[in-house]
């Protein structure tokens, strides 16, 4: 990963689908913004120009492991060069709902060469804080299905033909990703949060850690 010193701070959340990480980073964002701090939030796979291609690819199931990987790297590069890096230079607290680690685990579970994937994202700086939300797969599955009737094709890893039903496939696919996340936890210094617990308990843990590692007063918005 790139070693650049920025005035700002980068906080990323990672975890499998349904681990509750998006809820947690939204609550963190609320809390930071309520203190009138300079905060910028960015989500995986959200660059406008690239998104239409990604959603077309997903809808028509056109994506292979390699193009899946490359299109997400394109999306990330666009956000990194035009938003994340400039915001970090400008001294913002940048919050990322998923970061390059998502690509590391997803793409390699799909069979891409790990060195190839790592080099692809080598321009990205290491976050100052990375939270890994670790929940049991049953819990994750339950969270997703309480919000909508069915699992999505790619989120269930149906392109990998692991199991005939989406639920079974989800458990195998997301299970492999969770393993990979845990494997790289020390190398990249993830802070692991027990994501089986209540939303409130997790959030208070997250806020405590952020407050202890960042001098928040440095990020105050000009009056």
């Amino acid at each position, binding site marked *: 990963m790139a070693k650049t010193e920025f005035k700002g701070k980068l906080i990323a959340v990672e975890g499998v689908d349904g681990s509750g990480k998006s809820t947690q980073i939204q609550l963190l964002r609320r809390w930071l913004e309520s203190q009138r701090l300079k905060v910028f939030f960015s989500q995986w796979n959200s660059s406008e120009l*690239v998104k239409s291609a990604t959603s077309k690819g997903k809808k028509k199931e*056109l994506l292979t*492991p390699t193009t899946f990987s*490359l299109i997400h790297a394109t999306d990330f*590069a666009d956000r990194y060069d035009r938003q994340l890096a400039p915001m970090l230079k400008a001294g913002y607290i940048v919050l990322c709902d998923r970061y390059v680690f998502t690509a590391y685990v997803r793409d390699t579970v799909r*069979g*891409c060469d790990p060195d*190839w994937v790592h080099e692809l994202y080598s*321009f990205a700086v290491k976050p100052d804080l990375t939270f890994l939300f670790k929940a049991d797969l049953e819990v994750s599955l339950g969270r997703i299905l309480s919000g909508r009737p069915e699992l999505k094709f790619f989120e269930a890893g149906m392109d990998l033909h692991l199991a005939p039903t989406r639920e079974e496939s989800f458990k195998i696919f997301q299970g492999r990703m969770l393993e990979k996340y845990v494997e790289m936890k020390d190398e990249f210094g993830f802070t692991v949060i027990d994501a089986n617990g209540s939303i409130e308990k997790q959030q208070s843990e997250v806020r405590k850690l952020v407050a202890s590692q960042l001098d928040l007063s440095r990020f105050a918005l000009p009056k």
Partner: protein
Amino acid sequence: MKTRKKSVKKLIGKRSLTRKVVGQKLSRDREKYASYTNIQLLTETERKFYGAGIPGVDVNTLKGKLIVVEGADGSGRSTQIAKLVDWLEGSGHATVQVGLKRSTLVSEELQLAKNSNRLSHRTMSLFYATDFADQLENVILPALRAGRMVLADRYIYTLMARDLVRGMNPEWVKNLYGIALEPDAVFYLNVSTEKLIERNFLKSHSLDYWESGMDLGLSQDWFESFSKFQQLMMEKYRELQKVYHFTIVDANHSVEVVHAILKKEVQKLLSNKKTTHN
């Protein structure tokens, strides 16, 4: 680089030849060539990707040939490819053509992105790589598996040269295109800058923004920028030539002369392998 050359040498030593019968799987829309069955073609079994490659692909099942024609806009690539296709299909080989920016996945978005001119070099680079990967997996590899001749109107070398001219890290670029399959032949149509300008004006009476490298701020003058950019591209092609060993073809000659050269080279590729083996 040194280790690469060594491995190439080793490979040549190991190369074995097998007899393949093509012509039985000619495309349905080419039925008029159906009488050309049982055409004998020698193929090498030793194939490889440049680097990481595409997961799950067994290169030994890729029986067809991949022929790449590279060169700047105005170097005569499409004319030469059209002539090669006529000749190859006339002699009973099923062909498939690919080029840059033709993928179903991202070609539209790529065009939009180019027109908006607000993406970073890295993003553009990855967009093009996605487009390339999509065609590699959905067109090139299946066609080669079916024993067809694939003619590529530009391949990774143009993309790499552009990335390098725009200042991207060479190691990063090399890794990115490690997904690509090593072609059976790469012809680089070399044309002087003056001739390129002449041909571009004859064709459209204007210069293309990107082919003139206007995003690089080399000059406010389009004509001057075009010359400078093409010069830089040629330098990068020359560097890449040392690593990827293309055949450089002097394309300042007439269409017919260039075609004759290419035809001869492709013929060699199709039939001459026995002698190198012995």
